[in-house]
């Protein structure tokens, strides 16, 4: 199994130079103008919150809601970490967009054959032993890439070494954790980070119980309905037989008299 990779984003260090955004756009051949929010031509953006800069990017969840929601299994979590989208399978239902707790996936609304677009953590470059374009472009190591375990240690080091950091790594455990996490010197809720809707549980657990019930419901419902059918049929047969008997008796009586 490949070593797990991850990306650490340090909000304290970020200077808002947009190098990551530009590098990403350049790599994908999009026009370099910065965009206010994620779009089908901006897989990461730098948002300004007060005097802080917050990168928006796919969190590459360990148990992704989008992957569990996709009816044709076009989205999957790869072993090194990136959550990958298989455009050959996608039917364009956009359920992944509804399912994602971070509302990351974007759609090519203006195309006639539209696909879902989101960050893939530069999966191809990682496979070749490199790192994502955004972390490579970061001049101040606010975004760094590496082995997941090393980066978690690095994140804790930064928090321990500087008391201004909030003692929390956002994205490490939220919604079951993922391959992208943040450290910050401003409380995360003030920067627009929402608490995950499921706490530290993976989002797909929300549907697991409803889906898990279905075999039980089918078996129970099937048995009850079959039993009811048998009972009503039996009653009908009995009623028919009784009616026949009655007519036979009355016929006999009629013959006698």
């Amino acid at each position: 199994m490949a070593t797990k990779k991850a990306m650490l984003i340090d909000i304290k260090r970020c200077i808002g130079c947009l190098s990551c955004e530009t590098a990403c756009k350049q790599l994908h051949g999009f026009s370099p103008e910065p965009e206010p929010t994620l779009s089908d031509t901006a897989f990461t953006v730098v948002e300004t919150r007060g005097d802080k800069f917050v990168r928006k990017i796919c969190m590459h969840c360990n148990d992704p809601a989008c992957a569990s929601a996709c009816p044709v299994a076009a989205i999957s979590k790869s072993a090194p970490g990136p959550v990958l989208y298989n455009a050959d399978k996608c039917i364009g239902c956009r359920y992944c967009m509804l399912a994602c707790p971070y509302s990351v996936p974007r759609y090519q609304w203006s195309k006639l054959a539209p696909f879902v677009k989101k960050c893939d953590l530069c999966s191809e470059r990682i496979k070749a032993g490199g790192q994502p374009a955004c972390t490579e472009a970061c001049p101040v190591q606010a975004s760094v890439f590496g082995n997941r375990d090393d980066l978690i240690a690095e994140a804790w080091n930064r928090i321990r070494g500087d008391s201004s950091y909030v003692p929390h790594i956002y994205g490490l455990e939220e919604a079951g954790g993922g391959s992208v996490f943040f450290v910050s010197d401003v409380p995360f809720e003030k920067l627009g980070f929402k608490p995950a809707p499921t706490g530290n549980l993976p989002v797909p657990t929300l549907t697991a119980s409803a889906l898990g019930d279905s075999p039980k419901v089918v078996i129970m419902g099937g048995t009850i309905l079959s039993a009811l059918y048998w009972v009503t049929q039996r009653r009908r047969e009995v009623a028919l037989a009784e009616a026949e008997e009655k007519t036979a008796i009355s016929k006999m009586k009629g013959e006698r008299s």
Partner: protein
Amino acid sequence: MLTRIKSEITLWRVITAIIFVTGIYATYLRFFVGFRASTNLSDQMPWGLWVGLGTLCGIGLSAAGFGISAAVYLLNMERYRPILRASILISFLGYMTVCVGYLYEIGLPWRFWHPIVMWNHRSVLFDVCVCIMTYTAVLTFEFAPAVIEKLPWKHLRETVLHFHHKILVGIVLAGVLLSSMHQSYLGGLYLIARGKVHPLWYSQYMHAMFYLSAIPAGLALTVMAIYLSMRSLNVRVDFSILSDCGRMIQLLLIVFAFFKALDLTANQAWGYAFQRTSEAAYFWLEMLLFAAIPIFLLSYDRVRSHPERLYWACATVVAGFMVSRLNVSINALQSAMGTHYVPKWTELASSVLVIAAAVIVFRYAVMYLDILPKLPKGPKGFTRWMSNSSLPAHA
């Protein structure tokens, strides 16, 4: 000549023409220009009117087919046999509109078959797709005799109908289970969007709420369709059957309202209902139209046993049901997604086109197939149905 043409132009024909012209243009925009030109959907509102009206209402309002067929075939409630075929036809056409609507909804419609071969058993939407596909086949099977019995080849007809009759009960049973599953899974689709769906609607039992609300709505639509058929076409059923349906609808609505109230209490969501928000307003509109008003109206025998009043009570149920589904699919999401979505006219026009096509097929099916008992030739009229209730039941 001119006067003859003039007399052919009726209000409904003009409306139908408008629906077809705008609908076909909207369809052209959807398939040849794209989503931008044909919808107001966005990254913040990826699912809109097509899902809310086309799929959620379309499937929900088609719930009568499995209910009535379970009553007649499985529970031996022969009383409802006269409206069995009509309810199966309504469901069949409803599912057809959903299947056509599915092609509008998905971005790559030529890949509509992907869910058949590319499975993801963890996905609620996958289960919905498979159930709807299978159940559409079941409905086709259940409805097939109405067409087969009109075929001119006697031998083929008898062989097929004999075989059909042999496996019918099993298929009906499967249909009831399939329906129960996907009627609830449509609500289950939104389970994963916790934090996005407004607390007035989000609950871990959303799927159960969808199931409970679909059956009365489907019955109400069936009553409406049969009433309209009796009014405008040469068919008639014993009206007391529809009155009983009215009673059943009321009972089911009370069950729904009870569980909805229970659910809100369990989730401590009542507070949201008394805030000055648009969500609260939509919530009360839903509760009024789908619960309070019809439950009140249908408790009166004067309403239930009067065709026109029963029709309007059922129309309230159907309207309330549509509000309820659009609430979940659009209104409940807007504030969390930070957007305001108003469907583009093209979204509405294409949905209405598909529904209108289904209505037209229903009309001709009732006219030319044995869907509802036909009125013997003679005086027609609105008042006749009440007086003459001893019409032979349709087998």
